[in-house]
């Protein structure tokens, strides 16, 4: 009987180290996450159950050191394929934890990716993540209270709707604003990567600024976590910045470059989202494997009823297609020498398709799976409803389905007016 590992992946692109990482994470999922999944789901507010389990991944296994270069004690993971391999395994356990764990490092791709390292900031912030026995939590502070996805709509709005402002005052930035929906906020975050504008109200890529703000800076307030339909292992909340002052050097790259690399960060985020979706799909496969094997209706195992078998075939087709696409795009990001830089409009479009496709597929797969399991699909006990609840947000974040489609058409059809 095959396992989810049998679903085709380009193993020639996956290193021995990636496989060992996958194994370590799988052990963590099987021993610590999955047996506690119901308690984790209930723990949306205080994360008393979640925190120690996250600590094993982030600190003991060392996931929070991933993006940071080896010279500051990090692991120097700079391969999108490696992130997808890891994401598949974490999300198989809990996609909320996967989101939380990956957002610890995601804001720092701006300064850690080899082709645009910021040495000052790597030396400044790297040790906080790498030289510690405690969790140190990164948090992408992107969505503004009034702007929603327009912040990420870099190529249409060029920063015009970013309402968090950054004003240079001598050697300091003064930051004011109100961010919402940030993963790892809700009191958990230690270091924010804040998307701000230096020219409020103007359409100007040069005005987009990514500035790192330690959570204990005076003027920073983290709100309480939101109660959501799912992804309870991910804390999302408000962050208020009131006359927050951080050193000028805390800007990731500089005018123009911050916008460029924001596009790159979004491209990576699109593909890694595909990895989360794949992890959830791996879990759905396992749930259905067990369900359709053991459930017997009218004397036949469910897997042998043709109507069910038809649905299962469609599900597997979708999963296979998402795996191929996600790994292809991850590979493209790993080989800018062949495919061009990750911050290009083309790469953005080509990764937006992955986000759209993988999350739409996951929505459909969860829907079919719940259908197939009937009322059991609606019950906590049978696990599928959690994957279903957790999945929807993946379609919604980073600009939602709409922005995915627009970015794609902008490139392929040169639509300049949308």
């Amino acid at each position, binding site marked *: 009987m095959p396992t989810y590992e049998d679903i085709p992946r380009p193993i020639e692109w996956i290193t021995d180290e990636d496989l060992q990482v996958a194994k370590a994470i799988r052990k963590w999922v099987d021993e610590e996450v999955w*047996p506690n999944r119901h308690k984790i789901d209930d723990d949306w507010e205080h994360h008393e159950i979640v925190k120690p389990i996250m600590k094993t991944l982030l600190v003991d296994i060392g996931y929070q050191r991933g993006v940071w270069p080896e010279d500051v004690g990090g692991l120097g993971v700079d391969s999108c394929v490696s992130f997808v391999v890891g994401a598949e395994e974490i999300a198989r356990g809990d996609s909320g934890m996967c989101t939380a764990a990956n957002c610890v490092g995601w804001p720092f791709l701006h300064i850690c990716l080899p082709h645009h390292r910021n040495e000052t900031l790597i030396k400044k912030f790297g040790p906080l993540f790498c030289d510690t026995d405690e969790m140190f939590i990164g948090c992408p502070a992107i969505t503004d209270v009034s702007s929603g996805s327009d912040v990420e709509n870099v190529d249409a709005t060029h920063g015009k709707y970013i309402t968090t402002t950054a004003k240079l005052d001598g050697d300091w930035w003064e930051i004011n604003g109100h961010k919402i929906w940030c993963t790892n906020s809700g009191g958990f975050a230690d270091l924010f990567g804040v998307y701000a504008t230096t020219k409020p109200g103007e359409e100007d890529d040069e005005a987009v600024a990514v500035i790192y703000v330690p959570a204990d800076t005076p003027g920073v307030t983290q709100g309480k976590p939101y109660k959501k339909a799912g992804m309870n292992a991910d804390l999302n909340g408000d962050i208020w910045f009131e006359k927050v002052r951080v050193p000028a050097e805390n800007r990731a790259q500089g005018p123009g470059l911050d916008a460029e690399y924001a596009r790159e960060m979004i491209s990576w985020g699109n593909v890694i989202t595909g990895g989360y979706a794949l992890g959830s799909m791996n879990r759905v496969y396992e749930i259905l494997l067990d369900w359709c094997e*053991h*459930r*017997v209706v009218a004397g036949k195992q469910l897997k042998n009823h043709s109507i069910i078998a038809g649905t299962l075939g469609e599900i597997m087709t979708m999963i296979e297609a998402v795996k191929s696409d996600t790994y292809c795009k991850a590979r493209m990001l790993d080989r800018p020498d062949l495919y061009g830089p990750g911050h290009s409009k083309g790469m953005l479009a080509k990764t937006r398709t992955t986000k759209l496709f993988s999350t739409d597929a996951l929505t459909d797969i969860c829907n079919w799976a719940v259908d197939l399991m009937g009322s059991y699909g609606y019950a906590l006990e049978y696990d599928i409803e959690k994957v279903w609840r957790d999945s929807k947000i993946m379609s919604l974040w980073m600009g939602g389905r709409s922005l995915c489609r627009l970015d794609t058409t902008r490139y392929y059809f040169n639509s300049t007016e949308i």
Partner: protein
Amino acid sequence: MPQGVWAVTEIRDGEFRRISYEVVSEARRLADALGQELTVAVLGSGLEELAPLMGQYGADRVVVADDPRLEPYTTEAHVAVLTQLIQQADPAIVLLGASMQGKDLSARLAASLGVGLAPDCTSLAIEEGNLTAVRPIYAAKAYIKVSFAADQWPQMASTRPNQMAIADPDSGRQAEIVQASFDLDDGQIKTKLVEVLKDESDRPDLTEAEIIVSGGRGMQDPENFAVIEKLADLIDATVGASRAAVDAGWRPESDQVGQTGKVVSPNLYVACGISGAIQHLAGMGTSKIIVAINTDAEAPIFKAANYGILGDLFEVVPPLCEEVKKYRE
């Protein structure tokens, strides 16, 4: 041409362990099939009273190695003595029991004799004058029938506890008792038994138990195990647990029945509130009789059981205790 069947016994606290009767009975059946004699080997210290007992179970000859250095058991001493005795006697077949000691002994003895061993077998047969064995693999998810390479003697096998039927003893039957002579150098013995610690529980170890009552997720609470402990007490059963109960911290790991827990083979296995995941079935699937009590009609355990009650174990087990009491009187 090698002749005869040998059976190696195991002694604890001055008595043959139950597995020895199983092994001797099976060895007798094999000897009959071959038309050859059965020799039973008894190793230990102070064995005068004990050794002749095996005559009643079919031994033609009992070879006794009586030496203080053979009690308590050490691998080196027992292997050294048996290697000599077997090489001298040149039997066709040597049988042991796959108890903890038996597994330790048989594996090393086979290596010492330079022959193969079919361990932990559930059935044995003679085909064209040779031993064949059936043994479980993949935690009894499959079985293989094995034979021995040509011209390898003796053909060795060990039997899974609780699988082989014990013959009715014939009190009139007597075996020839032979005092073995062997060379044993103290320097050969490199292991020493320092201490024996008692295992907390009074009940037989799961792997030895004839009857097991197990609780799973359906027990809901560690305290509720008292319900099945009561049943276990009444039928002399050992209490086991599924992985769900162990992972939840309700029962110790040593109670876990399953592929990565203990593999058991009792005569009777009563599964209470256990769904019957494949890994659990792998741990108890060779039980002779399986009873399942579960509220879920779809639970896979019902496919593996001989008898089932679709019901709440908390409503079924207490009256079952009452009923069982009647049969014990």
